[in-house]
């Protein structure tokens, strides 16, 4: 069961349930009467029962009659009249294309009404594509996206669109054109690497015009509008409206009596009791900026935990559910090991090597600012810091760190620390390879006897594969002691995506047996949210790593540590 993803045994869940039920029923008396002592003293001869259940489960998964081939009478072909099988010149391609479309569609239930509509749309597209030889990548993507959304629209909408008459009849034979594939061979030709794969990722020289300008095909001086698909939004709205079920309300005296009855006496919780409460809690959590899927999963797990629980007297369903949810939230925010940076730095000091911390995150979350705050805190505690400027892309990154270094040295001059400069900046300008600079910085720190090395990396979007590879390479090669993900508290559902993709990139590109993943989270811009603190929950839930620091402003003293109970209290507040 531990390796469920690799070896999918479909009967495992059912088997566990069966074993659980059987064991409980068989030894029910012992449990109820004797309690723990019964557990310790009793002999549980369950092996035969377990083997029997296992055998049953295995057999049930194998038993599935092989699909019998349809006989000729059953198939559709025999039901078609001869007349419609006679091919006339004009009709033939329409029939053939329609059948092919039916086979090729992966969505369940494409009605016949939808088919001609789709066929006409599909037919139009490849012919249109066939005309224009040169299609830029963006336009292909746009076109494919539109087609994809059109395919997945509900059948109702499709039936309203009247099937267009076949205006274009293809004369003669036309090469097979796949809808979603590229229609010319040039784009598939990867022999010349200069055309495919822009040079955005690793700038070779100091200034690369391509990277600065980005998209060269734009008109000079024109500001383009933001493109967005209205289809997407309309579809999302429909999806949200569907699951809202009207809750039945029984008014009058019966309701009041039922409420009183619910208050006193012990009854066990059922799913139906908890559902309305959980629904409300879920909406409350989402309103507090917890990512939607996290809120759903949380409520699910609370429901599962509370199912069948016997409530005490004078406790309502709401209070029990709220209590359980609060416990679950506190437990999420206090994951296993508390990252004690100072303790680990002392350890590294004893072994005479620098303690390396790497900061990663998307653009504009506050990596450099919080790096400066953390170095201030470390200096206050008497450790010397080397800042490695591995952000070689963003203009002004090195200067920013240099200004911070100067300020920190002014605040803590060498005279007050026994002649030692507490902060120094290691930089190699712009355009160089970040991983190389980090490695040189670490060896420089080891030679000069610095206690901590803080590595600042460039911000990058989690979807940007070449940049994620570069980051993963930096972390894999330099093996830092602590990898901190910097995330802002304003982020909503994006937090989930960011963290998942960052972790995935780090795991994929590491050669080691145990890849270095994100070890901790720095939650920044906490002063901008007043009590919508849900981002903390989303991030810790996804990674199960602790929030090490919280940034609450732009001055050096605005560094805090997380207080789980306070955050949960703010979260549960109405």
């Amino acid at each position, binding site marked *: 069961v531990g390796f469920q993803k690799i070896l999918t045994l479909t009967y495992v869940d059912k088997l566990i349930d069966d074993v659980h039920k059987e064991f409980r029923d068989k030894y029910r008396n012992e449990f109820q009467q004797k309690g723990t002592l019964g*557990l310790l003293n009793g002999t549980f001869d369950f092996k035969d029962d377990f083997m029997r259940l296992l055998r049953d489960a295995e057999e049930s998964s194998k038993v599935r009659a092989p699909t019998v081939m349809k006989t000729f009478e059953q198939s559709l072909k025999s039901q078609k009249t001869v007349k419609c099988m006679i091919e006339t010149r004009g009709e033939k391609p329409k029939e053939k294309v329609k059948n092919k479309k039916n086979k090729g569609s992966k969505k369940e239930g494409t009605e016949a009404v939808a088919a001609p509509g789709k066929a006409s749309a599909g037919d139009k597209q490849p012919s249109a594509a066939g005309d224009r030889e040169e299609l830029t990548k963006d336009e292909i993507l746009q076109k494919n996206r539109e087609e994809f959304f059109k395919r997945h629209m509900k059948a109702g909408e499709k039936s309203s669109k009247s099937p267009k008459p076949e205006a274009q009849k293809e004369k003669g034979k036309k090469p097979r054109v796949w809808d979603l594939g590229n229609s010319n061979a040039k784009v598939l030709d990867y022999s010349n690497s200069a055309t495919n794969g822009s040079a955005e990722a690793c700038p070779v020289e100091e200034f690369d015009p391509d990277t600065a300008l980005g998209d060269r095909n734009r008109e000079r001086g024109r500001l383009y509008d933001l493109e967005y698909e209205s289809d997407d939004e309309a579809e999302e709205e429909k999806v949200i409206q569907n699951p809202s079920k009207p809750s039945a309300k029984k008014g009058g005296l019966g309701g009041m009596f039922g409420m009183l009855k619910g208050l006193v006496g012990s009854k066990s919780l059922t799913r139906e009791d908890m559902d309305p409460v959980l629904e409300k809690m879920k909406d409350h959590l989402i309103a507090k900026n917890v990512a939607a899927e996290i809120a759903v999963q949380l409520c699910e797990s609370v429901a599962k935990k509370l199912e069948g629980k016997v409530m005490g007297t004078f406790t309502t369903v709401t209070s029990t559910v709220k209590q359980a949810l609060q416990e679950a939230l506190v437990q999420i925010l206090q994951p296993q090991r508390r990252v*004690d940076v100072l303790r680990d730095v*002392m350890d590294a000091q004893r072994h005479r090597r620098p303690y390396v911390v790497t900061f990663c995150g998307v653009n504009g979350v506050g990596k450099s600012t919080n790096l400066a705050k953390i170095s201030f805190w470390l200096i206050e505690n008497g450790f010397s810091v080397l800042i490695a400027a591995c952000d070689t892309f963003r203009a002004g990154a090195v200067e920013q760190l240099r200004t911070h270094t100067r300020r920190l040295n002014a605040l803590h001059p060498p005279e007050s620390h026994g002649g030692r400069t507490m902060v120094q900046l290691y930089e190699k300008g712009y355009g160089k390879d970040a991983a190389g600079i980090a490695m040189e910085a670490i060896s420089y720190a080891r030679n000069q006897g610095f206690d901590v090395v803080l590595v600042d990396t460039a911000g990058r979007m989690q979807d940007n594969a070449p940049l994620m590879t570069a980051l993963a390479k930096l972390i894999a090669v330099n093996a830092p002691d602590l990898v901190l993900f910097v995330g802002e508290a304003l982020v909503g559902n994006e937090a989930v995506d960011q963290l998942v993709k960052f972790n995935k990139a780090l795991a994929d590109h590491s050669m080691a047996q145990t890849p270095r993943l994100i070890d901790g989270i720095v939650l920044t811009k*906490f002063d901008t949210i007043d009590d919508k603190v849900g981002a903390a929950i989303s991030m810790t839930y996804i990674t199960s790593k602790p929030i090490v620091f919280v940034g609450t402003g732009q001055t050096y003293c605005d560094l805090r*540590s997380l*207080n789980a109970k306070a955050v949960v209290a703010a979260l549960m507040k109405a």
Partner: protein
Amino acid sequence: AMAGRLEPHLEALRRELRAPDPAVLSVLLALLAVAVTLLIWRFVQGRRSSRKAVLLLGLCDAGKTLLFAQLLTGKYRDTQTSITDSSAVYRVSNNKSANVTLIDLPGHKSLRLQFLERFKAAARAIVFVVDSVAFQREVKDVAEFLYQVLVDSTVLKNAPALLIACNKQDVTMAKSAKLIQQQLEKELNTLRVTRSAAPTSLDGSATGGPAQLGKKGKDFDFSQLPMKVEFVECSARGSKGEEGDADFEGLEKWLARIA
């Protein structure tokens, strides 16, 4: 004050009793019933909150569950990593009817704090089980957990007696209790410095509680704690392996004293 207030009511009551008016009488009876219920309720609550529990804490694989089983039944059982608490009443041997509730809590990293939170208020004494064989490797984790237990506000308020049981003494490589005590004191000394130097908590309250563990100027020592701390060596498996009895007389004597 209660008696003073009752006087005029008693007069009215007497008057009513002479000329019974059913409505008022029933109301008075109802009030009386409610008062009695409240009294019983408070009594029951008080009983429940009396601390009668002895918690078995420790890291994973320290030997808590086996110790628990041996104390209660005297037999050796194969154990698995606990994922939930187990509690039973333990009768102290060769004594009157003194008994305590032994509670065995899971030591797994993700569960231990949660269960500690639930049971710390009911703790009269805490047995912290340490794996003496793996101690050298795990000293930081042991100290961190012990620090978290000691710094907890409820624990500091109640000051339950603390026994650090150095388990697995039947193995030859086990460290002695004295060595474990010294190492723990050194590690806790460092920990209290690093923990109190951590950035302050979000709403202003200091991390790790305002309590400074032990005295400020001097090195940390277990005698500086508000509760009584003892070290004892024991072995849940016993020197003869699975057939023999467990070797924990020190532990039993301490439990007898606590009960």
